């Protein structure tokens, strides 16, 4: 039988604070070790080449989600919560995915442009009167939390628990280190509040939440599955979008020519967002479980082991994106990046996230002539998400 020694051994810990605060030099060293390597610190295999990441994401039979996205196999150890759609394989996943896709699709998302626009106008109008602001605190953290829970139909009260809960969910995709423990400090309070918001009687009539519950009446999913799907929306739909907005602006604040071009052609905003998401992907890494002995990138992977999939490394792999993979290039076609995942578990909320990001950016472009960094951005210390705690910028308002 093959052993782990076949894989190159990588000795740095991907969950070390230094690797989290400044991930890209770390990811470059990881890729240099090989597209698939053995992580001594975690006992899992790191997948860092674009081609190999793509293969793991698309081959959901060999790389199972049912073991959870964290380092432990949740089928063997007790999970901290009932498994979500993200932590399931077909056919259980299939029922839930059908229900979600039936509710969130181009038609239903298109209808959100109307209600999603006025809050963005209001926020950017206020910010444009200032000489500078904090992109994260004053804009990114304000906008999705205002519009998205409305779209799901959750009550006003208790929304303050959504961000801390999302923080728990995503940090649990990493080890139970001190970052995890901080996120889980008041876990019970946040969990109870979010689970309450997912119940049928908590949800307004016209939101996505009620439409998911309607699938229960049609006999397509169970009540527990409906609760879990609404929970999935609430936990996955807020902080990832906040980070998406912050990360995009962290890139664009360093690209004055692109900003000027976007002001002339705001319809190109979505391309700038796509390239920024490739370069600064909010969701950097998660685990899958190898279901049968297999080989990837020339390395033998035994059944039962965990692989740690580095989306952020794949999105900067020079073999896929060329020698300037680490640079923002507005002319590049970013199509094929894996910031939203790929294949069976690809982000269902992608059109909503893209809509929110496009609206915010376009409203800001209309009112802000120039935007430049005012101080170094402060990265957030998070097991699997990449984003900023603070991102101060100086602006000049458009005349």
């Amino acid at each position, binding site marked *: 039988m093959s052993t782990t020694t076949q894989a190159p051994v990588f000795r740095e810990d991907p969950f070390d604070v230094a690797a989290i605060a400044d991930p890209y030099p770390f990811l470059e060293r990881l890729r240099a070790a090989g597209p698939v390597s053995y992580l001594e610190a975690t006992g899992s295999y790191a997948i860092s080449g674009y081609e190999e990441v793509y293969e793991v994401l*698309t*081959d*959901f*039979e*060999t790389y199972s989600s049912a073991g959870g996205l964290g380092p432990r196999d949740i089928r063997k150890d007790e999970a901290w919560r009932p498994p979500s759609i993200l932590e399931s394989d*077909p*056919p259980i*996943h*299939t*029922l839930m*995915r*059908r229900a979600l*896709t*039936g509710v969130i*699709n*181009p*038609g239903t998302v*298109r209808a959100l442009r109307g209600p999603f626009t006025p809050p963005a106008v209001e926020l950017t109008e206020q910010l444009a009167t200032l000489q500078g602001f904090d992109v994260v605190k004053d804009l990114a953290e304000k906008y999705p939390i205002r519009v998205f829970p409305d779209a799901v139909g959750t009550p006003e009260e208790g929304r303050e628990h959504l961000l801390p809960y999302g923080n728990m969910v995503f940090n649990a995709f990493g080890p139970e280190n001190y970052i995890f423990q901080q996120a889980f400090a008041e876990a019970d309070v946040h969990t109870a509040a979010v689970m309450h918001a997912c119940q049928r009687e908590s949800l307004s009539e016209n939101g996505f939440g009620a439409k998911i519950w309607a699938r229960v009446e049609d006999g397509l999913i169970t009540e527990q599955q409906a609760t879990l799907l609404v929970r999935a929306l609430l936990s996955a739909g807020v902080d990832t979008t906040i980070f998406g907005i912050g990360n995009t602006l962290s890139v664009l604040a360093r690209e004055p020519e692109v900003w000027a071009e976007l002001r002339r*052609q705001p*319809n*190109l905003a*979505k*391309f700038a967002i*796509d390239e920024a998401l490739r370069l600064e992907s909010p969701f950097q890494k998660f685990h899958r479980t190898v279901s049968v002995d297999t080989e990837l990138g020339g390395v033998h992977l035994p059944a039962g082991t965990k692989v740690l999939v580095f989306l952020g490394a794949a999105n900067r792999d020079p073999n896929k994106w060329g020698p300037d993979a680490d640079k923002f290039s507005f002319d590049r076609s970013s*199509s094929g990046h894996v910031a939203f995942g790929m*294949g*069976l578990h*690809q982000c269902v909320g992608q*059109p909503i996230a893209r809509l929110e990001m496009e609206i915010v950016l376009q409203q800001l472009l209309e009112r802000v002539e120039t935007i430049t960094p005012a101080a170094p951005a402060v990265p957030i210390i998070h097991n699997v998400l990449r984003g900023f705690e603070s991102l101060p910028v100086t602006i000049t308002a458009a005349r």
Partner: protein
Amino acid sequence: MTITAPIQAPAIIDTVIDAVEHPADGVASLILRRADGSDFPQWAPGSHIDLYLTDELTRQYSLCSPTDDLSTLRVGVLRTPDSRGGSAWVHDQLRAGGELRISAPRNNFPLVDSRKYLFLAGGIGITPIIPMLRAAEAQGKEWTLYYGGRSRDTMAFAQQLEDEFGAQKVRIIAEDESGRLDLQQILGMPRAHMLVYACGPGGMLGAVEDFCMGWPPGALHTERFAADNLGVGGNTEPFEVQLALTGTTLRVETNQTILEAAEEVGVRVLSSCRAGLCGTCETRIISGEAEHRDAALSQADKDAGDVMMVCVSRAAAGCSKLVLEL
């Protein structure tokens, strides 16, 4: 700036009907040979041709002959009771030895490379699938066909396919013997690296689309057929697209999509699956009417006509110009 490509009418080919066979109840199969004795142009599985039946009557039918024998082309035509005239004309007027004008083969239903395939055919929807089976088999791919129909008598080529590939790969499901295709059984368990190709009546495809919402985005490829013609609906003509934001007008030829035509002149369009499934390339229609060929929009959205997926959808028949927000 206006870019206008030269008008390219689809190549017209004069043929002679070599034979008319009846492979099943209500199905006529035409075998066509070129009038000048030469070979037909190369074509790929999923292709169809136009039959110019009369000055007013043009119908599209999928090719079901082997792609490596270009001396003849074969199409299968179901006579439909509510026929708008096309299938009845084929059945009643066309005879061996007669002449027939056709277009060169075109492909709106190409077989995308994959490791595994699941083929679903309802009734005469088997025709575009047949060359796909042969291609998948020749390339040593793992595949299964589920072929549903009312009864074996009505299911063209069913016996032939079962003999050719075996009952393990070719599952014939006749309604009078074993009921309808059990889509929950067939599609309830998505498979990795497997594409689903489905062709059949609208009701069946709607159910297939619903089940495939649980599959990876982009896994499903469908071809819908109207009451009496198979494959693409109305418009087979080139058309103009005015890109309102860019200020460009371009011509979309019959062998390209709006997306391809726009990219060809350097206009950027955000897209992902390029197969009408993911919805990324959704574009607002400012004026004109679209013929929707995607699986992403609901029927209500298609009817409303405010947006379209430019990777697959086209201008509707009779609409020579679309104005799009691009």
